[in-house]
């Protein structure tokens, strides 16, 4: 019986580990600059030409005309640590097929079909989902 309980517990933790949790919402502007906001209590309101964003501990605003995308993110470190405006990134499928190099993540997203991809700047690798 004890072995069964160990097994069930392990199975539950494994299942929990597989469930994706997105602690952050990343806001990416047209220049590729990323701003991460924690999603707890995240609220966004359009106020004239700006987007007011607040969460349970912080707040900021973005000029709507300068906003490009926003995306839920699992990373504690904002993606700008991987991608910078001067470094090209390489894009691969999850099975390793190359989709080429792009000047920035933003440029890559504009051309990629919906799906999951692996991106790398040669030093760090991440997985993204293009919708």
């Amino acid at each position, binding site marked *: *019986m*004890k072995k069964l*309980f*160990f097994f*069930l*517990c392990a*199975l*539950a*933790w494994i*299942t*929990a580990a*597989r*469930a*994706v*949790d*997105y602690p952050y*919402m990343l806001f990416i502007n047209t220049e590729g600059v990323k701003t991460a906001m924690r*999603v707890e*209590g*995240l*609220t*966004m*309101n*359009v106020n004239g*030409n700006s987007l007011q964003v607040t969460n349970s501990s912080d707040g900021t605003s973005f*000029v*709507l*005309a*300068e*906003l*490009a*995308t*926003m*995306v*839920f993110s699992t990373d504690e470190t904002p993606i700008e640590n991987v991608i910078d405006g001067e470094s090209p990134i390489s894009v691969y499928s999850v099975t390793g097929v190359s989709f080429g190099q792009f000047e920035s993540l933003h440029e890559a*997203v504009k051309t990629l079909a*919906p799906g999951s991809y692996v991106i790398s700047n040669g030093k760090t690798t991440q997985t993204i*989902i*293009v*919708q």
Partner: protein
Amino acid sequence: MKMKKIFFFCAALAYMSSMVAQTLNVKTGNVIYQFPASQAGYMTYSNGTELTIMGKTFALSDISTMYVDETAVKDSTIAVVYSGSSAVITVAGNIARYVTIAQSGAHVSVTQADDLAMEITYSLSGSSTDGEFYTAGAYKATLELNGLTLTNTTPVYSGAAVHVQNSKRIKVKLITGTTSTLRDAASGSQKGALYIKGHAEFAQKGTLNVYGNVKHAIKTGEYFTIKNATINVLSAVGDGINCEQYFLMQSGAITISGVGDDGLQCDIEDTTVGSTGITTDHEAEDTGNIYISGGTITVAVTAAAAKAIKAEGDIYITGGTVNATTSGGGAWDSDELKTKASAGLSADGNIAISGGTLTFKSTGAGGKGISGDGTLLVSDSASIAITTSGQAVVASSSGAVSVVSNASTLDHYDTNYKSSPKGIKIDNAATITSGKISVTTSGAGGEGIEAKSTIDISGGEIIVNSYDDAINASSHLTISGGMIYARATNNDAIDANGNCYIKGGLVYAVSASSPEVAIDANTEGGYKLYVQGGTIVAIGGLESGASLTQSCYSTGSSSSGFGGGRPGGGSNSTSWSANTWYALTYGDTTFAFKTPASGGSTMVVSASSTPTLKSGVTPSGTAVFDGVGYFPASVTGGSSVSVSSYSGGNSGPGGRW
């Protein structure tokens, strides 16, 4: 034990943690679009004016607010929660791009895009005294009524309370444990308080109450099926349920009352092409057929000439319970130039009943139990009880209708200008192989079972107490088995307008006094009664000129009165005693029967071997004919009744037809 508790706690905690969902809610007016974080992907801003998420583009000026919470989103679902003069609509993100939502107060419209290729579930709940739900699209859908109370007072998109314009399969789930109520607007062009243009499949164990204020309560443009659900039609100007293609009930309950026309009506959809005939699994079937295999249907209709259950095609009943009452009188049909009357069960095609418990009561003038333009087949475990208590209805050349309670007066009217309160009226052949049929009629022209063609009885138990002929065939009538009790108070008991063949079975027939006979054939037309077998008791005698292959015996002449005396009074004496138990014994078999209060003067008996007859017996055994007989029977006491050879008797007019 302590370790076990810790392990359980850890397992539960892990599972609970794994179930947290993150959802981006985008609110525009009263509509909330819910995008699961795991599906949202990159959400694109355009020119500072638009935001596109999962293919759905929002004008930023339309967005009230956006927020992230832990709402679990069920894909492909739109939930509408009505609350007074408004409604809140939530749309799952994966279908957001495929729907266009319009709203005016509590009036909600959802239009599906033509490229939608997944089934949407519309979950409706809450209440409003002035609201509606309208949806249009080209893909099948599911409608969940989850405790919805909706009245459409001032229509915006449709006069119906719920209108599904999709010509596809619509699953209507009455959520178990809930009661929903729908009322349409008081005026308008809506065809039903609940209108579904496509085919509706009602399921789950919830309850739906419907009030139809303009036409039908529920109208479907294609087939209607029901399983488990409870549907109550509480009022309708037109029919309670009006559908097309076919109606199929497997289980559940339908109750219909307060309607201005028929209770349940099923028509052929494509009247240009006509019936497709029955198809395998009803695939693409358009027959106007009604199929009942389980559940309970209770229908009460009151309008003149209304039908409780009406099919433009056939009716097949293999199980379930049907209770139908009609109280309306007759009506003149100026299109068909015929007098019409109410009926519990009515089919333009054939009727086949092989199971179920069916009870029909008609009280209005001309009202019938079962009326069919095709054939009738009763078999297997069918149980049918019919009572008609109205008089006949007639129409004048101007079309005005009136009630006639005198049978002789009724005879003066042409067939198209009268309608009689018959138990069963079939325009083609009737075949009874098994089951139980009980028919009681008491009005002028009220035949028990009438077929405009042949009647074949080979099994079952048939009990008829009728005003007019108990069993009448416009052509040949054959009894080869079964148990038949046929008593007519004003005409022949068993009457064939062609030949009449008694080949087997148990037949107890009682006619009115002469010139009526217990068993009649159309000798005037050159036809004949053939007695070839069976166990027969015929009070009222047999038609003259009969061919008696099996010997028959009578208890005495019509004027002698011996063998039992007469009940007293009147100009016709009888050779039998009224209200007395008799025993007819042949070989080791005894049939005990109770004589009626009145009937034809001569008692004729016949059996497979020379019978003996006793009167005044005390019977026991297997009760038949609702207690009027025992078969097989055991008897004690009684006195022997002398019988003499019988070769035929009355040659009356053979009754009315």
